[in-house]
């Protein structure tokens, strides 16, 4: 599985004009009230490159495909209105050289993306080089650009990196397109689900299955400091434990030597520690294990259920849920286990707190009056905001820029117990733009990676 998963990308910025922010700018804090009209021209290739790429990838027009990846990414944000390619008046190669701004203004485009794909040989191996430019139509100038080189097979990642660049340039926020999602792929009847770990690009492509489905696997999570490392829980040999896997080498090891069940694992932001729950003799406590020194330490000490821990991005605090008050509620403590404080006081039951990568919010699942909500609150518990309501949904995970939350949703079965499904969904922090995240199979327990390193 592992070898082809992570193809190296070289990239370097060549086009960096001095920029003044012009009219083109998006306020993403307000939801998608007025999407920005943007044209993504098909990227063009010379004939030699075209043939070479066709031989390598069996894709006729890679430039067009890359432009479609970008278009789809931008469209799904809800912030952009991607204009129909049929309406474009200018040819891709000419537009890339210097667009006729009047033509693009005519179709009400405010931003234009153009690009070029060239095949290249480095050390006798085939590569592709992709150059792109971002044009401000109203300002009549180029505002950004980038040139990237990669192996032909990771061409979609080029599309994602360009999407990130565009998003960053136009919103002022860091992007989230060149990322992956690890999740649990589910198949079979509800009473006998077969679950496998699966990894895919953020847009649902390039799905790889990490386990075969022989044993039950749950709650995979990325190491935020290294997107090749994940942790998850497995019932391997009917002994439920937390594992760490290196996706590149396939190396898998059990975490710690505990009597009892370990579960609910998450990495610290620097990837050096792992927090998890240990259930033993009817009591679940939160533990931390230093992955370098192998020293492990119990952080909570209470006869109630303490689980679902998540670090703050500075590593100083941990949020978790506990039923010590009688019902599941959200707590925050220092990362050494001291100063435990309850933060959720609204009506209902609260669980699965996950600290935002920006540090200011905690996403959670709430059960109230038979409905499940995904919501966010400030880290002191104030400002609770419910983003979405459904029959069953849980397990929020943040996009690396903290703008989007991905989670899973299960359907209610009918009178005969039929019609069960589990799917991944995403929603903006604003509460707008709720979307089904496409997966090959049913899916649950999503975890969003950081921006990929290389």
């Amino acid at each position, binding site marked *: 599985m592992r070898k082809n998963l992570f193809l190296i990308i070289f990239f370097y910025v060549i086009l960096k004009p001095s920029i003044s922010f012009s009219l083109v700018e998006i306020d993403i804090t307000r939801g998608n009230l007025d999407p920005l009209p943007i044209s993504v021209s098909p990227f063009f290739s010379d004939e030699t490159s075209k043939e070479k790429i066709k031989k390598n990838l069996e894709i006729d027009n890679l430039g067009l495909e890359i432009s479609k990846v970008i278009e789809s990414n931008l469209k799904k944000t809800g912030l952009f209105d991607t204009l129909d390619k049929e309406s474009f008046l200018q040819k891709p190669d000419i537009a890339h050289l210097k667009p006729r701004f009047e033509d693009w203004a005519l179709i009400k485009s405010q931003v234009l993306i153009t690009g070029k794909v060239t095949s290249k040989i480095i050390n006798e191996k085939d590569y592709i080089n992709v150059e792109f430019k971002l044009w401000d139509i109203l300002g009549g100038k180029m505002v950004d650009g980038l040139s990237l080189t990669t192996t032909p097979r990771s061409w979609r990642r080029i599309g994602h990196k360009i999407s990130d660049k565009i998003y960053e340039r136009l919103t002022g926020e860091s992007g989230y397109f060149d990322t992956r999602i690890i999740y649990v792929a589910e198949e079979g*009847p*509800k*009473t*006998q*689900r077969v679950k496998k770990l699966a990894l895919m690009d953020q847009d649902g492509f390039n799905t790889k299955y990490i386990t075969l489905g022989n044993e*039950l696997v*749950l*709650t995979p999570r990325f190491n935020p400091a290294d997107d090749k490392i994940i942790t998850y829980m497995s019932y391997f040999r*009917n002994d*439920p434990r937390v594992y760490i896997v290196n996706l590149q080498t396939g190396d898998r090891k059990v975490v710690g030597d505990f009597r*009892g*069940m370990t*579960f*609910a694992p998450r990495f610290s932001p620097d990837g050096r520690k792992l927090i998890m*729950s240990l*259930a033993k*003799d*009817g*009591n*679940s406590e939160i533990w931390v294990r230093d992955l370098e020194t192998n020293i492990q330490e119990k952080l909570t000490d209470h006869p109630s*259920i303490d*689980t*679902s821990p998540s670090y703050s991005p500075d590593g100083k605090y941990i949020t978790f*849920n506990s*039923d010590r008050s009688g*019902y*599941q509620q959200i707590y925050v403590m220092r990362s050494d286990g001291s100063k435990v404080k309850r933060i959720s006081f609204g009506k209902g039951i609260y*669980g*699965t707190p996950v600290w935002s990568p920006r540090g200011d919010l905690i996403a959670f*699942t709430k*059960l109230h009056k038979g409905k499940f909500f995904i919501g966010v609150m400030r880290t002191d518990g104030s400002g609770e905001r419910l983003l979405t309501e459904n*029959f*069953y949904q*849980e*397990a929020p995970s943040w996009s690396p820029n903290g703008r989007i939350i991905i989670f899973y949703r*299960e359907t*209610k*079965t009918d*009178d005969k*117990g*039929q019609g*069960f499904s589990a799917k991944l969904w995403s929603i903006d922090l604003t509460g707008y733009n709720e979307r089904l995240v496409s997966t090959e199979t049913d899916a*649950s*327990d999503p975890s969003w990676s950081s921006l990929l390193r290389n």
Partner: protein
Amino acid sequence: MNLSKILKNAFLVVVFGLIVTACATKKSVKTTTESSTTTKAAETQKADPIEKLDALMQGDVYIGSDTVGELASGVPDRVFFATNETILTTASRETLRKQAAWLRQNSDVTVVVEGHADERGTREYNLALGERRANAAKDYLMTYGVSSDRIKVLSYGKERPVDSGSNPLSWSKNRRSVTVKAN
């Protein structure tokens, strides 16, 4: 329940209510009419799923026999729990005493107590809850003389429901701990 049935029930309730009100004011009159109408109302309700549910659940603990298997002849294999609870009911304790008695007689048998939760809770919390339920059963078996090294505990949380329905009755069947022979 279809609409006509709902209307019929509602009608009966209204009629019954009127009669009761009437009786409150004029006690001596029409006692026979009252009793016959009441019987009829009760009969209609018996066919109602709500009534059926009452026979299968006490509070929200399952007390029926569907899905219940046997650890050994005459020894039920499972006990049921209330939502979010790990407390053993009187019926559960009786079942576990039967299991303990059988295990004492068959001292070479080891068991796994599997703890389960319904689908109305978050996955990780349910893993912990399943573990707590299984341990509640294990502790009770130990109280009745089964040594702890013969009992392994395994929580499945909400991962292995026996009933795939999305309703209170199905959920009550899924909140369980099951004692399974391990050898």
